[in-house]
């Protein structure tokens, strides 16, 4: 973390162009609405949007209308919210834990969500009443609670050790829940189930509708507002908890609020669209290079970049292999892993 911050402590020229970001987000949302499995003309897309947004009254095919408005636009908005939420969660965790490798999945949240989803599907828990998403949310919450308890027990309440303890606790939690997932799959998965589960574990936005938008938008906005509210505290945390405390920040309270809220944001996003990796890890690093290390800029920049990145990844997942939708996690990891390697190598060399 410190090396990444040192790299980008001054204001980057990219900051000047940040006002363009909402336009970029808008353009990406339109692209996400225009590009899909089937081809629908641009004219039809604008007619549908004009009808729905301004009541223009153009005659359009009702199935085209439904696909564009109910399937694609809702999907693009949820993708944007998930990207923003996961990027913010990564940003906050990296600051609080002072570890450049920290991301939401380090906390065991993803592993727990996976176990919950698999348990619901394969073990038949809930017998249809409980959906994959509900199982994932319960699993994420359980895993996160266990990781926090373990970290607290390990650090003995000493704040100097808490950051390290939570990373190790997250690692242990991830391993435990990954093992449970493997156990349940090995116990009784058929080929059909394994395929359904695999698709979910790698992220999937195909089932997203407006109901999900109603949940995703407030959660993402809430996460953004909390991060903006505590932006100065986040600045202080990057110099360590002792420095933050000396600057008059209620360290334990602020850290508790930030970690809990980001875990909640992650759990909601993961339960909606599956386990999408690398967004929380890569986007904050990329934004530090562009806008610098001040959280006043990093918070909105990371949220916007995360949103744009995930909508773009979702578009790629739909067009890369004709006639087949790839799990979005495959795309984010294919882009994220090399980007991460680059960050690692550059960071180590500058050290």
């Amino acid at each position, binding site marked *: 973390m410190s090396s990444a911050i040192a790299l980008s402590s001054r204001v980057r020229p990219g900051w000047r162009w940040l006002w363009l970001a909402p336009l970029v987000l808008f353009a990406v949302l339109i692209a996400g609405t225009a590009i899909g499995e089937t081809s629908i003309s641009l004219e039809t897309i604008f007619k549908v949007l004009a009808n729905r947004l301004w009541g223009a009254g153009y005659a359009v095919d009702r199935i085209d209308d439904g696909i564009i408005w109910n399937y694609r636009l809702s999907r693009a908005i949820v993708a944007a919210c998930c990207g923003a939420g996961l990027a913010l969660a990564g940003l906050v965790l990296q600051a609080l834990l002072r570890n450049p490798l920290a991301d939401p999945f380090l906390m065991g949240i993803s592993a727990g969500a996976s176990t919950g989803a698999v348990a619901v599907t394969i073990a038949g828990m809930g017998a249809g009443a409980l959906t994959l998403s509900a199982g994932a949310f319960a699993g994420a919450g359980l895993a996160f609670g266990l990781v926090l308890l373990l970290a607290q027990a390990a650090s003995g309440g000493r704040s100097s050790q808490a950051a390290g303890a939570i990373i190790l606790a997250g690692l242990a939690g991830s391993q435990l829940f990954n093992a449970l997932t493997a156990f349940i799959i090995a116990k009784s998965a058929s080929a059909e*189930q394994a395929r359904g589960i695999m698709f979910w574990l790698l992220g999937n936005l195909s089932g*997203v509708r407006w109901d999900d938008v109603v949940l995703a938008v407030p959660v993402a906005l809430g996460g953004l507002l909390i991060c903006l509210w505590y932006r100065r505290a986040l600045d202080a945390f990057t110099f360590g908890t002792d420095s933050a405390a000396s600057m008059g920040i209620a360290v334990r309270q602020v850290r508790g609020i930030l970690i809990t809220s980001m875990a909640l944001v992650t759990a909601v996003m993961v339960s909606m669209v599956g386990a999408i990796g690398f967004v929380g890890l890569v986007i904050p690093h990329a934004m530090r290079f562009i806008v610098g290390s001040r959280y006043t800029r990093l918070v909105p920049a990371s949220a916007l970049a995360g949103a744009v990145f995930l909508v773009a990844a979702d578009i790629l997942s739909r067009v890369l292999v004709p006639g087949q939708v790839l799990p979005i996690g495959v795309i984010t990891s294919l882009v994220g892993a090399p980007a991460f390697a680059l960050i690692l190598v550059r960071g180590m060399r500058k050290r």
Partner: protein
Amino acid sequence: MNFVRHLSMVLWLLPVAHASADAHASAGASVYPLTVTNCGREVSFQSAPESIVTIGQSATEILYALGLADKVKGTSVWFNPVLPQFRDADAGIERIADNDPSFEAVVSKKPDLVAVQYELHVGPAASVASRDQFNELGISTYVMPADCDGKDNNATGGDGTRTAAFSSASIYKGITELARIFDVQDKGKALVADLQAREAGAIAHAARLELPEDLTAVFWFSSPELSTDPFVAGRLGAPGYMMDKLGIRNVIQSDEEWPTVGWESIAKADPDVIVVARMERRRYPADDVDAKLEFLRSDPVTREMTAVKRGHIVEMDAHAMSATMRTFFGLEVLADALSTMSFEQ
């Protein structure tokens, strides 16, 4: 219905009629040692097996239909309740597992033969045990040809990929070979004749309906979540066969047995008929046929589909959508359902 379609249906029925007449003739006794080539392997029998364990409902029901229930020591991999006519016979037989049994659970029944519906259970990447592992213990294995003739079960895992369209001949072949292995050839011929008659009857029924030439359909099995990409039938499996025989075009053109296809693509294709699977299993919310119907009628896109608006939705036993004896019953269900629908614009 145009002339070519009528003619092709009549031509198709000729060999069936011939075979049906032939089947009623008495069959000779099996000669042991008997060797059959089954899914690329030679399987030899010194005498008719005395005890059997089944992995797969299809193999189980065919053995029951051949009057061999008293030799079945255990069953496994069930999708739906047993056919009503076999309920009494099945009640006295141990169900080792509803899903995949363990190798030891199968072996502990000391079977002479393990009869298998899906190659994935005993194939190279076996989920129960490989055929070699059974052979090492002196246990023969027989895989229903419907799951390996014209099908690659090794390339991609999952449910396998059809390399050629499913043919009803593979079901008849499985019945005939099992009848030979157990020396009940008369029963095998009678069963084949009965199924062939039902198959021909359903096809003739559909031919009389004078269905539109460009009729299209989609078969929806289930989905991991209700609104997410559903598992639908590819063009070469048992549902593909049903559509082909009744003169319907599958809007899904994949060679996969059960590909996942987005609702966007299905809605754009706007099939005339939607066939939904009915099953007892409740692992996914979409396993429930009522949940499927509710989704189709309430989702803002699917409710605009022609088939949903006109009520052209057919409920079919999920097991009939697999390559099994029940495929022919599914064919009858579909033909009967089509007879109640109007396709005039």
